[in-house]
């Protein structure tokens, strides 16, 4: 059972602003039935002032999608289009007293419907209609959308990107691409490592091991919700403790093996990794 706030439950059971507007001034449609949620936003706009006089919606989706739609319409009514466009998906989530992490994409869908409606009103092409730059085929998520949501919500892990955009939540084949995008966005360049293994002093070796673990290993584990901690280095023995998701992960043994391979490749062939 999802941990919904009372506000989400209330607005799911008693949604406001439901239905169509006859002869609307703008319509924004996002999502699709195949994806599992869809939102159609109707706006009545005062053409002289660009003020939103009325906003109504139709939503196919779960409780948080329906509640987010009410939140969106309540937030934008009475505002000018430019004012409305300052409302982010986080404002929608905040209006609801927060959303479960896995449901943040519902708030993003609200914000997207607004953009689509404004684009429709201004006679522009809907921003997400473009088929090019598609990263996630399963849920039709573009690179543009991922970049935008990542920056707006300061997302750093692949899991977060999936929670907020659904990208990568289907077959998973785009997960490496999302990882790449995150690196690009936050300008984390793959670590430059010495090509030849030089004879290292004990101190240099310890420093290099720490460096490889920090830059090569931890970001990958963190991307899957896990982590690790370096406990000790004793000659060629590196003692590591797995943390967070890695602790319960049945693949923990494989993870340690992979870390060992990495350290052997980049630092010293004699290194062994043990669980601390």
């Amino acid at each position, binding site marked *: 059972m999802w941990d919904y706030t009372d506000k989400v439950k209330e607005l799911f059971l008693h949604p406001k602003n439901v239905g169509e507007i006859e002869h609307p001034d703008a319509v924004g449609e996002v999502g699709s039935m195949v994806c599992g949620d869809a939102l159609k936003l109707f706006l009545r706009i005062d053409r002289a002032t660009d003020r939103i006089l009325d906003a109504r919606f*139709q939503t*196919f*989706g779960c409780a948080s999608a329906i509640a987010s739609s009410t939140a969106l319409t309540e937030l934008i009514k009475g505002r000018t289009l430019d004012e409305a466009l300052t409302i982010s998906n986080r404002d929608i989530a905040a209006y609801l007293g927060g959303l479960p992490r896995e449901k943040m994409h519902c708030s993003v869908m609200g914000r997207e419907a607004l953009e689509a409606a404004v684009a429709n009103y201004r006679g522009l092409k809907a921003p997400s209609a473009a088929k090019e730059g598609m990263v996630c085929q399963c849920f039709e998520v573009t690179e543009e959308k991922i970049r935008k949501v990542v920056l707006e919500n300061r997302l750093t892990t692949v899991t977060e990107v999936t929670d907020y955009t659904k990208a990568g939540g289907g077959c998973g084949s785009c997960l490496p691409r999302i990882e790449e995008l995150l690196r690009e966005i936050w300008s984390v360049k793959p670590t430059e490592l010495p090509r030849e293994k030089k004879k290292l002093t004990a101190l240099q070796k310890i420093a290099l091991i720490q460096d490889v673990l920090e830059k090569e290993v931890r970001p990958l584990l963190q991307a899957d919700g896990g982590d690790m901690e370096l406990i000790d280095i004793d000659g060629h023995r590196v003692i590591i403790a797995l943390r967070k998701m890695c602790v319960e992960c049945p693949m923990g043994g494989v993870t340690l093996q992979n870390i060992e391979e990495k350290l052997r490749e980049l630092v010293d062939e004699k290194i062994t990794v043990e669980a601390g």
Partner: protein
Amino acid sequence: MRTVYCDNNATTAVAPEVLDVMLPYFKDLYGNPSSMHTFGGQLHRQVEEARAKVAALIGADPEEIIFTSCGTESDNTALMSAVELQPGKRHIVTTRVEHPAVLSFCRHLARKGHRVTYLPVDHLGRLDRDAFRKAVDDETAVVSIMYANNETGVIFPVAELGQVLRERKVLFHTDAVQAVGKLPLNVKELPVDMLSLSGHKLHAAKGVGVLYVRKGTRFYPYIIGGHQEHGRRAGTENVASIIGLGKACEIARARLREEEDRVSRLRGRLEQTLLAHCPDAQINGDPASRLPNTTNLSFRYVEGEAILLRLNEHGICASSGSACTSGSLEPSHVLRAMGIPFTAIHGSIRFSLSRYTSEADIDTVIEVMPPIIRELRALSPYGRESIGHL
């Protein structure tokens, strides 16, 4: 508000008679059956009596019954034993619609270098027999195919498949967690080598499962430690739950036929009325071969989680194959394997009944469900479209 519990494939109520026999073991009779003293040692006999009752329900010999902690442990143990004892055979055959207890374990073995064949099913959830016959080869260590599906209730022809495998001398395991207690099942006539069942699916408590291992089948334990279960499953016995399971099996054996009929009639009334009152709805799964208690229905243009939460407001408990209820974004792997369109999967609801489901419970669901579907469709941008359109 009265609870209308229609989620018995998830878990069942502990039968009052079962609870009664369990209680003394939480209070006065807290001993360890392995102890030398009478206080603990006397419990050994109670555990053996429970074992005999479990064996009787499925036509096994008591020594073929290994108590475990749950259905998942039984499934994992069966597969692990099979691959552990046949290191030269690196192939496993299962289906795309198995419970995660088997499916995830097979994926785990695949990562360790095993080859796994996932057999397809058709649009009614029926196993592809040709694919089955072609899949098994000289390298196959074990075939694991469920007796009945937890989501749709579809029953697989386990006896027929077992016959083929026996002739080809391939080890056969069946996950019968959803079948035992709901269908008559006798391992004397069923050519399986291993079979899993779970206590809490048949009105016993949580925390106890069983792995049946046919006499003469080589077996390697998964949990290693003490000598319990003749060294086949270490760990101090969950005495209270085991004794409760014995009682639950005794009751199931006595009442099975009569309950099967009654529950099946209730299920029929439920699904036929809902189909009659909700347009654009369908049954998922082969109506000709299903568990008597399960119905999986799709209501198009509405989303399953939304339906469940509305039902919840009326005290009705059910479950859904929709993506939003799964904890991931993936909708039901079972319905997808059947090729059910996404539009129907998102709006799928499973009702699973039990011996405690009453006519009044069904009346409540029948009364509450159609307006919920109507209201949610009124909210939906697809509400007025026809099936042909999508």
